[in-house]
């Protein structure tokens, strides 16, 4: 039998219909829904008199707009309308909803895995580009637009051209204090934000295998920032153990049966890809982005690039534009960049292990007087778990604000925005112009790097802190 990679295996088991001159008609196993990209889809169903084909395969929550303090009050009337519209739609069409105030509520890409809805071998879609997160479990998960949301609601399928496949192999071992976030930022800095366009990426290699499930989610989450249709990682024992006992995971003997099926989905020895890229983990240092897209990043020990580093006029122009927006000088050292805000949160880095890592750096220290820091757990249950461990006390004692879960300052749709001209060390995924607020300047970093920057008031190599901790 021909060796197949996991992408081919999942694709082939989901084709409902295939014919020449058309994309494949793919079955969708799980449809996650949030308030921002769904109202027009439900309205489309109503106007056409259509039903939701499989409400049992849908799960909805509110995350993008929800306030992270003073709940349940929602001051913004337009946001409130969008939130109540989702609640009404879920009720009308019979879809499970984790509403504001519900113990399952949270960022959709955090709660999917927490509830065990995310499973290996599933096709998973959501009207959100960071749906790629669920690929960490060996699922084929990708973001779709609102018209496609409507299509999935009506038919539980999507017409999809089979993308090309790409392997990104991360060899060797990651250094102490270097995070999963640094791996994915290093990959994007090395090959650019368009490298994955038209491809589904499988992340492989020793460094990926040694990551926890939560760290794998960080990697897959940002595969969209490399332009990839989806990013995934073959399941292994860690995947199985993460899912064991989760509410929506199979139970008892069915779980063992499922686990066997899941493990068999892993890419076969000798399977091939259209493109293979390799990077060595030991070359990766903590990364800080200095520009206005996620590929504009470099090691914390380095400097902001200069025009001389680029050949084409377009690239030189892009550098100047980015630095003008960011208020940085060519050749400036990364450690000299002073920050005014720290945001620990988002579907990239708001899980319990992210909060533990940040807390371990912060513990017993105070955040810099010039810095305002907020911590936004990815879900209610993450928040609860963190409080049971006392992590909230560490953050509060250091001077951070401890908030309710939601997308928050990652995109600033709620009140959590960064003022114009001010800088934020952010554990989120996008540093586009205006992403965190009009004129706001975003630097993407790992939770550990964000925590260290909060203490010092500027970027600093977190490996110093980690070494100190080890010596103690």
């Amino acid at each position: 039998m021909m060796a197949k990679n996991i992408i081919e295996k999942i694709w082939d088991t989901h084709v409902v219909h295939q014919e020449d001159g058309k994309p494949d008609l793919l079955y969708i196993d799980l449809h996650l829904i949030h308030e921002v990209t769904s109202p027009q889809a439900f309205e489309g169903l109503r106007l056409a008199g259509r039903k939701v084909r499989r409400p049992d395969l849908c799960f909805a929550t509110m995350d993008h707009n929800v306030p992270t303090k003073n709940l349940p009050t929602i001051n913004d009337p337009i946001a409130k309308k969008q939130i109540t519209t989702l609640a009404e739609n879920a009720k009308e069409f019979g879809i499970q909803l984790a509403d504001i105030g519900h113990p399952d509520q949270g960022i959709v890409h955090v709660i999917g895995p927490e509830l065990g809805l995310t499973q290996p071998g599933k096709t998973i879609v959501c009207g959100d580009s960071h749906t790629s997160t669920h690929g960490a479990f060996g699922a084929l998960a990708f973001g779709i637009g609102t018209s496609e949301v409507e299509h999935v609601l009506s038919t539980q399928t999507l017409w999809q051209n089979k993308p090309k496949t790409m392997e990104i192999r991360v060899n060797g071992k990651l250094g102490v204090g270097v995070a999963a976030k640094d791996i994915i930022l290093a990959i994007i800095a090395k090959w650019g934000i368009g490298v994955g366009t038209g491809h589904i990426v499988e992340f492989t290699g020793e460094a990926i295998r040694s990551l926890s499930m939560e760290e794998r989610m960080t990697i897959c989450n940002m595969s969209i920032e490399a332009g990839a249709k989806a990013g995934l990682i073959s399941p292994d024992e860690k995947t199985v153990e993460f899912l064991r006992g989760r509410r929506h995971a199979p139970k008892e003997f069915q779980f063992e049966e499922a686990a066997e099926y899941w493990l068999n989905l892993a890419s076969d020895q000798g399977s091939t890809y259209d493109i293979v890229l390799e990077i060595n983990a030991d070359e990766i240092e903590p990364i800080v982005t200095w520009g206005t897209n996620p590929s504009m990043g470099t090691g914390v020990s380095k400097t902001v690039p200069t025009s001389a580093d680029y050949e084409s006029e377009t690239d030189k122009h892009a550098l100047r534009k980015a630095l003008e927006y960011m208020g940085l000088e060519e050749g400036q050292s990364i450690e000299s960049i002073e920050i005014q805000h720290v945001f620990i949160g988002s579907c990239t880095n708001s899980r319990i292990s992210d909060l533990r890592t940040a807390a371990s750096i912060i513990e017993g220290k105070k955040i810099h007087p010039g810095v305002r820091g907020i911590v936004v757990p990815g879900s209610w249950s993450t928040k609860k778990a963190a409080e049971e461990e006392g992590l909230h006390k560490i953050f509060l004692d250091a001077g951070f604000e401890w908030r309710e879960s939601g997308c928050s300052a990652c995109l600033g749709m709620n009140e959590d925005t960064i003022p114009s001209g001010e800088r934020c060390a952010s554990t989120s995924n996008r540093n586009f112009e205006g992403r965190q607020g009009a004129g706001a300047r975003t630097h993407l970093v790992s939770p550990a790097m964000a925590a260290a920057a909060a203490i010092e008031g500027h970027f600093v190599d977190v490996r110093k802190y980690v070494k100190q901790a080890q010596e103690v």
Partner: protein
Amino acid sequence: MEPINQVTSVITPLDRKNVDTDQIISKEFLKRIERTGFGRFLFHHWRFDEQGNEIPDFVLNKPEFKGSQILVAQDNFGCGSSREHAPWAILDYGFRVVVAPSFADIFHNNCFKNGILPIKLTETECDEILSKGLANPYSVDVSLEEQTVTGEDGKVYSFNIDPYYKEMLLNGWDEIALTFKYDEKIAEYEAKRIAY
């Protein structure tokens, strides 16, 4: 959706690469629950200053490009978020065609669902059209049927397009209605689907 075949208009040269969906439609405008009315928010932070006045240097504000239906940009257009509000804003503003050397996948898909024709030309061809359009207003005639972009100077640029999406755009079909024809096949699949 509105069918599309022939579009003749002056091009709007947006000489930037990696134009992301946060720039196309900023997050503060995503809270509406309608599909229409997003055109006035297109490229908001590039078009308007903090007081809401037009920034005269920005290409969409130049009088010679008002009423243009064809946007031309550089590599990786539409990267970032899956928000369909981006193509909705582009369409509502009046563009029917976007030309670039490459598009981000989700944005590219979203165009086809809304009657917007995304045309991939080579980087050299896009550079050429952009420099013509930046020097003087430059009109082109787009034909989806012929898969060509013909400049007012007679220069013809050919493009490839997936035949399935070409058919959808030419006819303005409702994809969901088409998929309902496969209802039995979907039911057959569901009967034997592996699900835990």
